[in-house]
Structures are given as structure tokens and as C-alpha cells.
């Protein structure tokens, strides 16, 4: 079943168009990766899906419902959750308060405590640091917190914008393992990455974005094997 569909979406910042006529879809249960160079429009795409940006043309559908004009804070309740680029931890709030913020739109107490359990099982470090102030966490810990917080809204679609940014190599592997685990627990994931190797290896399907346009698409394996992509994104020439 198609969970998310973008049809002919264009997004502009003032007069500059960052996304041109983009169309793609995400099926329920998939991990879909979006890779591309700096400034290709990956974050712009994510913000358009979460509702922080409005497209100038085209339409978005989520779970069969048109959401093009829906406000961002309502999309969260509908099941779209974004862990933003740069993590976006509330620096003055504790780990617990940050996680609570993730569940801001929820009222089902029992479901929430189950999700706290889920997050603390995925990230035992967060359980140890419940009362630490978010701004004092290390970069990797903040990334765990950002993903955990995004899970607290019990999303059907999880948007991850460069979760491996700034992490040490062994940590990157761990984060991707956790992402796969989250997906196996039933959450659909749209993943933006610079680390194309991991992102393609983990993805069911993937797209390559170049200056606001999708130039390649296929299964993760297909793109990993594509010589042009190898050269441009995988650091093999």
C-alpha cells in the first residue's frame, strides 16, 4: 500500500526554486533512501513532507488523504514524524522533557508509556540519562534523542534527515542497525543521507537527487551497483 506520494512537487525559497517537479512514493513498511550532494534539496524535500515548507506546485498524499495544505503540527498527529537535520534537541530541556515533547499531540497514556519503553530499549543510553539537560549531551547522544523523540509520536512514517551526520564510524553502523530495527518493528522510514553506502545498503528502494531533480531510482542494491553512482557518491572511482 502506498503510504506517501508526491506528485509533481516544486518548492521555492522566494524566487529560487529548490525542488523541480518531483514525484515519488513510499510504500508502507519500506525504508526509502534519498541521497544527494550538499544543496541538492534533500532537506527541502523532508520539510515539505513534514509541512514546514509549502510546495508552490504539485500535491502530497499521505495514507490516501491529500495533505498538501495541511499544517505541520496536524501532520504529526496523522503519523508523519521528522527528526530534523542537526537534531533539533531542545537545549534547555532534559532528556525526559525532550521525549515528552515528541508525544506532545498524544493523549493515549498507555500507548505513550509503551513507546517510552520502546525508546529506552532501542537507546539504553537515554534511559541512563533521563534528567540530563539536552544541550549538554554529546552529538551522538543527541542523535539518539532526536530519533527517540521522533518515535514518541508513534509515527507511521519516520523522516530522518542525515542521522549519521557528525558521528564516529562505529557509531554510524550502530545508528543504521537501529534504523533497520525500527523499520522491522513496523515503521516506514524515509531516510536522507550523505553516507550513501550505508543508506543504499539498508534501503528497499532509493532515489538520487541532483539540484532539485530525481536523476536515478531503483532498489538499494541496484543503485549500489550503478557505476555512475559509485563514482559520484560512494567515493570509488
Amino acid at each position, binding site marked *: 500500500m502506498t503510504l506517501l506520494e508526491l506528485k509533481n512537487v516544486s518548492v521555492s525559497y522566494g524566487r529560487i526554486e529548490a525542488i523541480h517537479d518531483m514525484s515519488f512514493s513510499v510504500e508502507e513498511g519500506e525504508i526509502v533512501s534519498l541521497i544527494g550532494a550538499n544543496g541538492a534539496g534533500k532537506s527541502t524535500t523532508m520539510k515539505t513532507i513534514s509541512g514546514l515548507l509549502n510546495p508552490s506546485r504539485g500535491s502530497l498524499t499521505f495514507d490516501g488523504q491529500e495533505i498538501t495544505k495541511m499544517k505541520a503540527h496536524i501532520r504529526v498527529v496523522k503519523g508523519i514524524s521528522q527528526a*530534523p537535520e542537526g537534531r533539533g534537541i*531542545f537545549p534547555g530541556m532534559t532528556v525526559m522533557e525532550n521525549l515528552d515533547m515528541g508525544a506532545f499531540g498524544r493523549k493515549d497514556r498507555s500507548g505513550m508509556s509503551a513507546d517510552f519503553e520502546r525508546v529506552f530499549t532501542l537507546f539504553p543510553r537515554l534511559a541512563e540519562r533521563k534528567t540530563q*539537560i539536552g544541550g549538554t549531551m554529546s552529538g551522538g547522544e543527541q542523535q539518539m534523542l532526536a530519533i527517540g523523540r521522533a518515535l514518541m509520536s508513534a509515527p507511521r512514517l519516520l523522516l530522518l534527515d542525515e542521522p549519521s551526520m557528525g558521528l564516529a564510524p562505529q557509531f554510524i553502523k550502530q545508528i543504521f542497525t537501529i534504523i533497520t530495527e525500527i523499520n522491522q518493528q513496523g515503521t516506514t522510514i524515509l531516510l536522507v543521507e550523505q553516507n550513501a553506502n550505508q543508506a543504499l545498503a539498508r534501503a528497499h528502494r532509493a532515489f538520487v537527487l541532483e539540484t532539485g531533480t530525481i536523476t536515478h531510482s531503483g532498489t538499494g542494491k541496484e543503485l549500489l551497483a550503478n557505476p555512475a553512482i559509485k563514482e559520484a557518491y560512494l567515493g570509488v572511482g
Partner: protein
Amino acid sequence: MLDLLLVHPVSANDWISFDIPSLIQNFWSATFDGLTFGAIYGLIAVGYTLVYGVLNLINFAHSEVFIVGAYAVVLVLSALGFGPSVPTLPLSSIILDLVLALIIAMLASAATAFVLERVAYRPLRKRNAPRLVFLITAIGASFAIQYTIFLVRGANAEPAVTMFQAQPVFDVFGTIINSQQIIIVIAAVILMILTDQFIRRTRVGRGIRAVAQDPDTATLMGVNKERIIIITFIVGGILAGAAALFYVMLVPSGVQYNGGFVLGVKAFAAAVLGGIGNVRGALLGGLLLGIIGNYGQILLGDSQWTDVVAFVILVLVLLVKPTGILGTSLGRSRA
């Protein structure tokens, strides 16, 4: 710093001198009077601080949000038969009337803040207007409200409304503390504690803190930013309405169309002194500014110095600690 001024006497009668004996003699009365006025500054300061916290906007028109409340107090009490002389009503009906005036003042100020945000600021946000445009709009809105009041009520101060005779309650180091001072300080502190707890403990309060720390991420958490913004304006308005009642209690004939300006500037200074964006800082800054201003007035022997001294202290504190005494931390869960 102030000594520098002493070595340059302008004439035989020094134009500036320090009356230290007078300060010592009047120390406690200056302290208690200062605390009382400071509590009022603090209540108004919360409005500046909250709006600055969520919008990074200095809402210059907040002084008019306050003065509208003061007009409401005067008009309601006049209609209830209060006037320049001490009312002869029984205590219970005075209390009832004052509570009514308080509620109406809170509503009037909150409504003013609400309309201000919807008419003046929200359209600018929709257009992504630059910071400077917000600031100029705020100043313009301040004048617009002042002159609207001027048109309706004229240039003169409203006739005095005396609420009740201040009664001596107890004696501290030979200084009488009166019932008005006690009521104002206690009520202000209670209101500030309620506001502080509202922001720290409630769901909406968490939303306010989240928007203050990172508006986009707050939106991604499901926070309705527009709703949070309007709530902060309303909360600031409610406290300004309370401040208006206490102000009229102390200064029964002090309500004039442009009367919000000076109090607004001092309340803003109080917010900066305590750490703008910080509710506890607003109260602390207000109380300090009230007290220090009074000391300065007595020390320098002329009421005109109150404001100068207060602002010199403000500048000195900011030189040492640019974020104010408690820091700019609407977001912080612990100070």
C-alpha cells in the same frame, strides 16, 4: 563610578550630592516602597519577557496593554461609585468591587494584547517580514493605542479613584508597612509563581518553552505555534491587567492616555535586568529596579533621579552579565 561626578562641582551649591544620612534614616521605607512598585514592574515585565521569548520581539505596545487595564479599573470603579475620597462602603463590598475591577482589567488588557497580536503582528509573520518591520510596527501600535485613548478620554488624567485607606499593619525597624504594600507584593508574588508553574509544569507551558527554544522543531513535535503565540500575549495581558489594578491602588490619579510609557520602559528594563525571556528574572528585576530606584532618589535628593539611577544600574549589570541576572532562559527547566 559615581565618585567621578563629585569632583566636578558645577557651582557652590553642588548640583549633585549624596544625602547619606537621609538614606540611612529612610532606608526601610525606601525598601518597602521600592518593593511595592517593583512588584508592579515585575508583573508588567512578564508580558515583555514572554513575548520576547517566543517571538524575539520587543513588544513596545505592551505599555498600552497595561494602560488599557488601568482605564478599565478607573472606569469600573467610578461606575461602582468610587471617587477621590476614601469610600465608606463596608469592607466586604469593597473587596467584591475590587475583585470585579481586577477581573475586568485582566480581560481588557488580555483583549488588547490579543487584538494587537492578530491585527499588528500576525500579518507580518505571514509575510515573513524582517525583524525591523516588527519593531517599527510595535512602536506604531503603541502610539495608535495611545491616541485612540486620547480621542476617547482626552488628554487629562482620569479623576482619582481611591480604593481604600492604607492601614498600618506592622512595624519593621521603625517603619510602618501598610496594607496596600502587603496586598500588592503578596498578590504579585502569587501571580508570578502561578505563571512560572504554568510554564514549567503544564502542557501548554511546555509548548511555550519549546517554541521559545526552537520554533520549527516545536512545530515538528505537533505544537501549534500560532496558538502558543496568542496564549503568551494573553498571559502577558492578564498580568498587565493585574498590575493596572495595583498601580491605581497606589496612584489613584495616575491614569492618563500616555501614562503607560514610563512604567512600560521600567518594566522592560526590569525584564532585561532579570534576564529577558525569564519569568523569575522579570520578578527579580522588577523588585530590584523598584528598590534601587528609590535608594537613588533619596541619596540624590530628588525624585527625578529615580529613573537615572535605575538605568545606570541596568547598564552596569549588563556590562558584567549581558544576559541579565538570571540569564535568558524561558526554555530552561531549571534555572
